[in-house]
């Protein structure tokens, strides 16, 4: 039996000196290459869970293990975010002063590497996502769907093994939402990556092979 890629043990996260409990003892395991959708009402704690899985935040108690090593203690969170996970956000969060191809290179600037290699990889990723004609556009010159594709390329830049998407279709119309989801599931299948999507859209949640519902900071049975 292989060990899970991610293991969450009794995870709790509270804010405002404990007055707000976002997560109340969440435990789950995620295998490598899984495609999971996490859904729940607004404020249920699904985004908090994703942030903790991605090492963006630290839990109040409990732990997240990546390949049996605890995040934050054994595994450095910066290293984890740089090498192991790629983030996709609802609001894209592209850097407005950089062209599409430059935005994709930003994660690779986290290490000292070959500039030409960085640029070639960014170009290849954008081409792979059908943006070969938009390489040199700034974010405000791209449509919402194109911006999200640039954000996906950026998330893939450092070849992560886990892709975390927080409401990736939240700012898109239905047609573009479907296309973005096709891209994400395509990446998950072709690259064997773990894909964890937080969504409040039932269509997307139900399309995932594994669906986790969060309610009031707990996983629903």
């Amino acid at each position, binding site marked *: 039996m292989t060990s899970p890629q991610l293991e969450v043990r009794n995870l709790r996260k509270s804010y405002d000196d404990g007055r707000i409990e976002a997560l109340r003892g969440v435990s789950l395991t995620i295998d490598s290459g899984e495609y999971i959708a996490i859904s729940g009402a607004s404020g249920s704690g699904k985004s908090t869970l994703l942030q903790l899985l991605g090492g963006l935040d630290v839990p109040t108690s409990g732990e997240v293990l990546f390949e049996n090593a605890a995040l934050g203690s054994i595994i450095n969170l910066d290293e984890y975010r740089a090498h192991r996970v790629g983030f996709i956000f609802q609001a894209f969060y592209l850097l407005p002063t950089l062209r599409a191809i430059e935005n994709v290179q930003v994660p690779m600037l986290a290490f000292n590497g070959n500039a030409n290699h960085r640029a070639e990889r960014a170009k290849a990723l954008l081409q792979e996502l059908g943006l070969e004609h938009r390489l040199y556009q700034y974010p405000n010159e791209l449509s919402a769907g194109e911006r999200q594709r640039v954000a996906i390329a950026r998330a893939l830049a450092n070849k992560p093994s886990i892709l975390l998407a927080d409401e990736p279709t939240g700012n898109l119309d239905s047609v*573009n939402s479907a296309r973005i989801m096709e891209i994400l599931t395509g990446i998950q299948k072709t690259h064997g990556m773990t894909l964890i999507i937080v969504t409040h859209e039932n269509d997307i949640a139900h399309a995932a092979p594994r669906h986790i519902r969060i309610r009031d900071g707990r996983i629903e049975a």
Partner: protein
Amino acid sequence: MLFRRRCSRRAPAALSLYPGPSVDTGRAAQFTGVQPNAPNLRTYAGIMVHQLSFAGFACKNLLRRRLRTLLTLCGIGMAIGAFVALVGFSRSFEHEWERLYSSSGTDIAVVDKNFMNTSVNESLTPKLRAVPVVAQAEPMIFNIMDITPEVNALIFGWNDDSYELESLTFSSGGRFHNGKPEIILGEMLARNLNKKVGDTIELQGSKFAITGIYHGGTALEAGAVIMSIDQLQILSSLQGKVSGFHVRLRPAPPGESAERYLKRAQAQIEAALPGLNAQAAADRASNNQFVSLAHAVAWGTSCIALLMGVLGIANTMAMSVFERTREIGILRAIGWKTWRVLLLIQVEAAVLGFAGGILGLGFGFGALHLLANLPQTASVVSTSLSWLHLVQALSISVLSGLIAGAYPAWRGAHLSPVEALRHD
């Protein structure tokens, strides 16, 4: 179920992750006005792949608020300009003093403890000349005088047969004579005063005939007035008193080093003239009260200007970090380490400092040129700037940037990624 149908209908391509042509490309083209396959864009894309360097990223961040960056550059530029001009002025002043001594061949200056005092007895001249190591010793007076309400100048009192006159070349006329109300003017001063040989000039209510216009080896001499000691003593009501003596030494005996000989000569002179200081000319040039005062004023004023420049950069960097809180959160979210974010912000601050420094060198050089051409300051300023001074100015500028950027960088680098991403 729309999504499920689409997923099942279109399997991911083996080579391309993108399932098909974008439906929003046309919309974006409408928005940007750039057609996706426009020849210029395709050509641009075909020539090279655009590389993003760390420094390039920092520069792009600075260029997003061009006006603010420009104003900050002007601020640090003015500060560095003030440093270049003021410290350049004081160094040029010191340099001119050194040349003043070296051009006349003076080895030692014998002065009272207070340089500005004309309090040394001229009657000590024979005693000094009798010291074995002394080849020539000349009494001299040095002062500063208002020539006109706008122009003040250095004024030297020498004997008409002083060896110091040998280093001057007369462009017209000749030497003054002891006991007569005669003066000679440096070329630059004569030009500023529009005077020529044969004209008279009124100093402190007394009229003096101009007997010669000379070309001096230094800016101090070129902007000076020289007259006989006795006339200057009358003018300043200090009969029998001089500022000190300038001494030429006999050649050093074989086998004795110049440095050792100089020290021995100083000791002999001080022994012969108790209460007076015999100082090496080079030391006298750099340590006299005028030069020390000029250095102190230059550095003091520059420090105040630099402080203003540092505050300007600090304000710009703090604003920039605050405005980019979410972007810093993005960088942290995608794996940038704390120190790399810190480095990015510090590189931005250093680039501001460096660019401001370059601008400041231009300002400073311009200011020095202006000072060198103003009648009031032309006598003590030359426009030459040493490489050391330029490197020093740029280093101070970059260092100022780093100091100013330190806190904003620390603050930005230590933002929690989640908190930063929530920032509006």
